[in-house]
């Protein structure tokens, strides 16, 4: 064998062995900016450890379906998933998530992360101190608004004349509706507000939740599983009716929209106020994306008759229980690196919404972006949807019935919510929570 042949074979053997033994972690998440930011953070981890980390994504409406289809097949196409907060119950009961109690104890995760995010993203059942996810992306609904329009002296004078109070960031949901009505000028190509109306997954429900909780309404008693009289209470009905009133001040054909459309019309300069998850606000600070960046402001949800509340978004990172032990070990190593305070700081720096208490409370974080102060404020008034394994069953009727009332303009809020209560009662009964 001549030297060239030996050399070629040697290189081939090296390539094959390095390909075989290359360590790689795959994290599955939805297709949005935080996933790109996690990829950026993961590259720092790769630099330190040599372990490749790939963040694979899929569009939001398919995220739940694809994840649970993979789980149903006991698949290992991803090592970890940054699962939505409502999934915890289904992930745990199905045996899809690895229990992280020892990891929590060793790395003091419950102590370093905010209590609300630990309870919502990681613990199941709530209060059990059994943990299955590392709070990763704290998120909730907030608002972006056209500060320059709000501060225009002519607009301020006209608003004062029409409504009898100063045009400013709304303090109540009633004021928010007034402002939406004031700026809604379809003839000028300007619209008052954007709210979530999407029929897929949980879009519309997440939008309505903000108002339902603030109006004193409820999605049921999460402890006793009682829904009748709560989901269709007069407060919940009033909240849904209010949301429909807001819908009339949205841009045309706004009947099936979520975060992407909200940012799109906002950056086009067509809307005065835009409801969205905080995770989508970094895009609005980029001048290339949002030409109105200098005139853009942010605020947290206003108060309703029952106080201030925000629909919780956000996700925790869980280990897929169907992967090999060696991949589990790699996943634990990554999570151990991820929860360290210095890396949580890096996570915030690349744009992630950390759940780490120390980082959240730091001056550096609060001043890092124009919306971080509103985000911090919001994270103390969050409330979530049901997080039981049957959450997807519960989502379908509320999405269908509320879309029927708010967008399709068919029936009344009471009829829609009565249907939801009836269908939810059946689902909870069938699942064995009630008799």
């Amino acid at each position, binding site marked *: 064998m001549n030297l060239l042949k030996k050399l070629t074979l040697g290189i081939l053997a090296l390539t094959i062995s390095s390909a075989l033994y290359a360590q790689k972690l795959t994290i599955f998440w939805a297709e949005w900016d935080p996933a790109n930011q996690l990829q950026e953070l993961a590259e720092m981890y790769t630099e330190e450890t040599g372990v490749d980390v790939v963040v694979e994504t899929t569009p939001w*409406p398919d995220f*739940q*379906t694809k994840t*649970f*289809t993979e*789980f*149903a097949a*006991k698949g290992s196409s991803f090592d970890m998933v940054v699962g939505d907060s409502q999934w915890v119950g*289904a992930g745990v*009961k*199905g*045996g899809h998530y690895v229990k992280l109690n020892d990891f929590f104890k060793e790395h003091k995760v419950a102590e370093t992360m905010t209590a609300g995010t630990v309870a919502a993203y990681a613990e199941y059942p709530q209060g059990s101190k059994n943990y299955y996810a590392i709070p990763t992306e704290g998120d909730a609904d907030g608002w972006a608004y056209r500060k320059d329009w709000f501060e225009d002296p002519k607009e301020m004078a006209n608003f004062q004349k029409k409504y009898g109070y100063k045009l400013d960031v709304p303090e109540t949901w009633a004021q928010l509706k007034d402002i939406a009505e004031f700026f809604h000028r*379809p003839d000028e190509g300007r619209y008052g507000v954007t709210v979530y109306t*999407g*029929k*897929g*997954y949980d879009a519309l429900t997440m939008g309505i939740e903000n108002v339902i909780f603030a109006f004193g309404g409820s999605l049921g008693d999460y402890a006793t599983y009682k829904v009748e009289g709560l989901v269709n209470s007069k407060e919940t009905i009033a909240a849904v009716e209010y949301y429909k009133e807001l819908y009339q001040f949205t*841009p*045309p*054909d*706004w*009947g*099936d929209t979520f975060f992407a459309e909200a940012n799109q019309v906002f950056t086009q300069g067509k809307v005065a106020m835009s409801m969205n998850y905080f995770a989508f606000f970094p895009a609005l600070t980029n001048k290339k994306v949002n030409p109105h960046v200098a005139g853009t402001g942010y605020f947290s949800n206003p108060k309703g008759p029952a106080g201030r509340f925000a629909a919780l978004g956000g996700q925790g990172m869980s280990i897929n229980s169907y992967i090999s032990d060696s991949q589990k070990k790699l996943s634990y190593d990554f999570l151990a690196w991820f929860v360290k305070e210095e890396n949580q700081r890096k996570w915030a720096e690349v744009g992630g919404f950390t759940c780490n208490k120390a980082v959240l409370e730091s001056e550096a974080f609060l001043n890092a972006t124009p919306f971080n102060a509103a985000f911090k404020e919001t994270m103390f008034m969050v409330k979530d949807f049901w997080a039981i*394994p049957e959450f*997807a*069953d519960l*989502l*379908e009727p509320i999405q*269908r019935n509320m*879309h*029927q*009332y708010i*967008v*399709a*303009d*068919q029936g009344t809020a009471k009829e829609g919510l009565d249907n939801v209560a009836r269908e939810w009662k059946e689902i909870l009964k069938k699942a064995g929570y009630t008799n």
Partner: protein
Amino acid sequence: MAVGVHKEATNSQPGLARTGLSDLSIRNLFIIPTIAFLACMNIFPLIWSLFLSFHEWRANLPDEKAVYVGIQHYRDILNDPAFWQTFSLTAQYVLYAVVGELVVGFGVALLLNREMKAKGVITTLLLLPMMMSPAVVGLFWKLLWNPGWGIVNPIFGLANDYAWLSDANRALWAVVITDIWMWAPFVMLLSLAGLSAIPKHLYEAAEIDRASWWFTFRNITLPLVTPLLLIAIIFRTMENFKQFDMIFTMTGGGPGTSTEVHSIRLYRMAFQSWDTGKSSAFAYILLIMVIGISMIYIKYLNKIKER
């Protein structure tokens, strides 16, 4: 027996055995793997889903035991008014879309069935929509129907707040028109094949007899092209009955439930609510319906052929 035949063949024609594959080899190499593949990918899921349709089970909780519930799921679905509402909506969608495709497709075929310049290029261009993915067509038309930046409203002189897909009364029509745009070329293609196969001498004889255009169309063109039109109707009915991707990307079944056809309802039940047992029963009911409708068509088609 097959082995014996094979041996005989190889003994008498040794050259063939070396150059071609024997029946036994063909069976082992192609037929058995194909049957095994079909059994795994088609027949097993069919039987498994039939089993599941009589059980309470959720695919997102695979370790939970399936509980036998008999025909409960079938009874629940057939007694659910929402099912019949969806059925009525699906029937409307299929009817409007198939009739539209038939009228447009056959009309265009009649126009193209003559000597004209660039006929081949025009025919190819007209076939382009049906070559696209239905999901892409749905997303593409979602933009076209948008009153803000779509081209539909300006073309028809409609106001920029005239919503199509967000309006419960117009969304179905928007979906139907999109479907007609996509699939009328398919009907056109089959109609053109039928029209070009009609013997020319029949038209010449009609011309000698001074038959009117309508008489010729009614007594020569239509009867001779009907078998192919019926095949187009069968295909389009079956396809539209299970239409999913285009509607899902355009409206997601909304607003409310105004475009929620059977397939979208089934998808939500199976992959959003994870009610696997009930959705299997739902799928079987749909399967029986599609088979029933197809059988009626095929029976009618055979009757026409006999004539």
